[in-house]
């Protein structure tokens, strides 16, 4: 699964679940609805979503277990185990964890000062900047990877400047296919995560605590270490572990920016399955991957429970002020500049360089030359992506509304709720591998069909719809429904007349999320898409892996188009979200 969707969903997942447990409405709703509505109907609503989950999540995962655990032929099993636990796997595992640790450290290092600035200062343009930090959440990894090749490659603006300044014949810097490029792209994705998780916690932390320490004789540094840091620890640990998990399961960024030299577990699964055709080994690696992410998630949950401290949280107007001294203004400007450069520069460079040859890169998308890497004009990928995305949106909305309606009022709903969030914790490549293994033969011989892509995307998009619709349903006061009922509206009519007008915004946000998730999905699609049915991210990846300026240019052009779609989606989400809501 692309890091971007992952990041977003986990935040929402965490916050909304809290809301479910603590909202007084949730309990009142549940009493009301278990009294008023037939038990069976509520359960029937869940049949379709549960069946979907069973067929397109658990069944494929089961196929991975089967493939890795029951290997027919004795000697081959030994060979498989030797390879699975051999030096190569250990190296991959080591690199996966190492780069994740480095990315996490770097993200925290750059993100913490930014979080402090966002938490404690009020400055012009803050709202806009805050909205912009959401952009990485909706940008597909392929686009970001393409953008970073544009920033770090031989024809980057920096190289051009250096060449003309020092009269160089060759570009001095090529950071593509280096660890640095991978780290930078990971910082791009996760900077916002640190800003959001640590920043929002910090913003509500009572500044009097640190000031009390100061008047009791603690220097600014001592007060930070003794008071602020321990109190920030849960947020810091949560952010660090989340960043680590995302970087640990990173796929598109490593595949494109790392080049052949680097492989995380995720990339190794893909290469074994697609390039080597060694499905059993891929399944074995997937199993390791599943165990690792599961372990990390368990640590994350336990850490959160242990570190949580009752805090008197303060509203923002108490904790924030305008920067006053020259030092404060410089600090704020430096961090705002860093954030803007980090988030903006790759995207601006990407768009700018897609016009390097005028409109040539764009017009080339409509041609279908002999010997092309596609069987169709590349622009057909846009058509495919839109079709898949529309299908995904429809299916995800249908299943999402059913799920949310069935679950929002349940006291014990969190277990089922967690069940529907499971796909978010599963890597997309693993999911794709599961489809490869499970859908090859009856009863579900869907391998290679467009429908399977839609199902895969729906699985990834469904949690976003549920996450957005459920809180909206919970926020409707039960008295509104009761009033409608006493005025003579039957349950279906109550939903249409009361719930729907109130939740349509949330539905729209969910729909836009489903659409952009589908448009940008790369991990699972790369495993199951047929060559003649490419999506936009697949096309970009193929262009990027071919030599030649025109291929690269087309990758940039297509990435720019996809970026435009996603940014439009993001603007739609921002304007549809009810004012004051934070995710």
């Amino acid at each position: 699964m692309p890091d971007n969707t992952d990041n977003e969903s986990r935040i929402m997942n965490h916050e909304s679940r809290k809301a479910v447990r603590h909202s007084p409405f949730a309990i009142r709703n549940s009493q009301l609805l278990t009294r008023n509505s037939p038990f069976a109907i509520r359960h029937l609503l869940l049949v379709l979503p549960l069946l979907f989950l069973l067929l397109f999540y658990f069944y494929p995962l089961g196929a991975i277990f089967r493939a890795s655990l029951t290997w027919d032929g004795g000697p081959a099993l030994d060979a498989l185990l030797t390879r699975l636990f051999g030096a190569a796997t250990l190296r991959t595992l080591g690199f996966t964890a190492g780069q994740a640790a480095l990315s996490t450290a770097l993200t925290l290092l750059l993100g913490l000062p930014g979080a402090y600035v966002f938490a404690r200062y009020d400055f012009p343009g803050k709202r806009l900047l805050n909205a912009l930090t959401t952009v990485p959440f909706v940008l597909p990894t392929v686009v970001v990877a393409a953008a970073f090749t544009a920033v770090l490659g031989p024809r980057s603006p920096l190289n051009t400047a250096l060449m003309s300044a020092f009269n160089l014949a060759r570009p001095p810097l090529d950071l593509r296919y280096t660890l640095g490029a991978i780290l930078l792209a990971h910082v791009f994705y996760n900077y916002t995560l640190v800003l959001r998780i640590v920043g929002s916690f910090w913003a509500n932390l009572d500044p009097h605590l640190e000031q009390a320490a100061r008047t009791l004789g603690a220097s600014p540094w001592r007060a930070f270490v003794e008071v602020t840091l321990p109190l920030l620890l849960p947020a810091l640990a949560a952010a660090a572990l989340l960043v680590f998990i995302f970087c640990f399961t990173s796929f598109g960024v490593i595949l494109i920016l790392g080049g052949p030299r680097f492989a995380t577990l995720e990339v190794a699964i893909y290469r074994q399955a697609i390039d080597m055709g060694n499905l059993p080994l891929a399944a074995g690696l997937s199993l390791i991957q599943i165990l690792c992410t599961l372990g990390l998630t368990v640590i994350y949950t336990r850490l959160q429970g242990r570190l949580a401290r009752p805090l008197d949280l303060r509203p923002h107007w108490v904790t924030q002020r305008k920067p006053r001294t020259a030092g404060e203004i410089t600090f704020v400007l430096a961090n705002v500049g860093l954030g803007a450069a980090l988030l903006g520069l790759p995207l601006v460079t990407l768009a700018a360089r897609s016009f390097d040859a005028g409109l040539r890169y764009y017009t080339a998308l409509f041609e279908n030359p002999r010997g092309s890497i596609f069987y169709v004009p590349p622009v057909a990928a846009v058509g495919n992506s839109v079709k898949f995305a529309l299908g995904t949106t429809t299916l995800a909305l249908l299943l999402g509304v059913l799920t949310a309606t069935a679950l929002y009022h349940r006291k014990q709903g969190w277990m089922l709720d967690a069940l529907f969030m499971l796909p978010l914790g599963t890597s997309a490549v693993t999911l794709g591998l599961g489809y490869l293994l499970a859908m090859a033969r009856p009863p579900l011989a869907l391998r290679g069909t467009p429908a399977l892509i839609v199902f895969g995307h729906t699985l990834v998009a469904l949690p976003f719809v549920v996450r957005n619709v459920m809180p909206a349903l919970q926020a409707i006061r039960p008295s509104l429904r009761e009033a409608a009922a006493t005025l003579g509206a039957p349950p279906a009519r109550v939903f249409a007349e009361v719930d729907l007008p109130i939740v349509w915004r949330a539905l729209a946000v969910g729909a836009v999320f489903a659409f952009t998730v589908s448009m940008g999905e790369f991990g699972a699609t790369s495993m199951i898409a047929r060559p003649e049915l490419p999506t936009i991210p697949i096309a970009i990846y193929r262009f990027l892996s071919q030599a030649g300026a025109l291929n690269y240019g087309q990758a940039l052009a297509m990435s720019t188009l996809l970026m435009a779609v996603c940014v439009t989606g993001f603007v739609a989400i921002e304007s549809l979200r009810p004012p004051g809501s934070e995710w």
Partner: protein
Amino acid sequence: MAFLELTDIHKTYENAPLLCGATFGVERGEIACLLGPSGSGKTTLLRIIAGLETPEQGRVFIEGTDITALPAHRRGVVLMFQDYALFPHRTVAQNIAFGLRMRRHSRAAIAARVAEMLALTGLEDFADRDVNVLSGGERQRVALARSLAPQPRLLLLDEPLGALDRNLRERLLEDLPVILRRVGVTAITVTHDQEEAFALSDRVILLNAGRVVQTGRPETLYDHPHDTWVARFLGLENLFPARRSDCQSDLRIEVPFGVLTINDQADAPQPGAEGNLLIHPWGIHLEAGTVNAFTAQVTQRAFHGSYFRLTLAVDGGTLRLDIAPGQTPPAPGETVHGWIDPTALRWLSA
């Protein structure tokens, strides 16, 4: 020079002047109280003394040394916050020990001092408690113990009773000055509640719109407010526009409902001067008299438990006074005759 001296402090907040030339001093061992309506800049003054804010203009001296630029942690001035700001990740004893640790006291010295503070505030059994489960009054005592433990040169208390409910407030209003005096610390409290100010402090520093308008013992302020704003702020309501007669030889003041003789030689206005006259309610007697006699109609009578409050209509205003329930109070609508004790009259400049 006083122990603490503030001179001409100026501070703006979001382009609006908050403090404009505040000047005052506090003596060693004194408990002073900054009193003023909300927005008068009293908390900001406290934060400037603590070193958490820097004034744009003006100086702060302690024992003659200019500390205006000294960072908060080197001042030996502890601020107790209104919300107490107890460290939620530390126990009661650890909170109290914090300031001692910052001063690098030995482990044994810290333990001894913490025990002493726990005893002083009656928290002996609370040493290892989680501060998050304490009641409001207990939190207040922990905050006080933590503030006193490092023996600050000056203790600042921002609305020390503000976060407590009414009953607790009244009890602690008696306890707090006892503890502060026992320790002998120099302290400044901030409050918007005059009752609290009067009960806590030796001296009140009254602030309005960023300036000190009057300082003095509580009873002095009450007896002779500096101007009508002070009188109104302290809840003194019997105020009338007044003019001193042109005659040089006697102190006769014209008010809307007659001419009154004043006894107050010290603040006597020039002949012909215009200002306001304050009539203390204790000087109004509802019986026939020879000086400052007046006639009025009773408009309201309210029973307040230990006294009746009467509102009388006179020309140009109302007079309010309290009378003990032993007497039979006149009923609304009745016309009454009375006199005003010349010693109860205060001339306030306009």
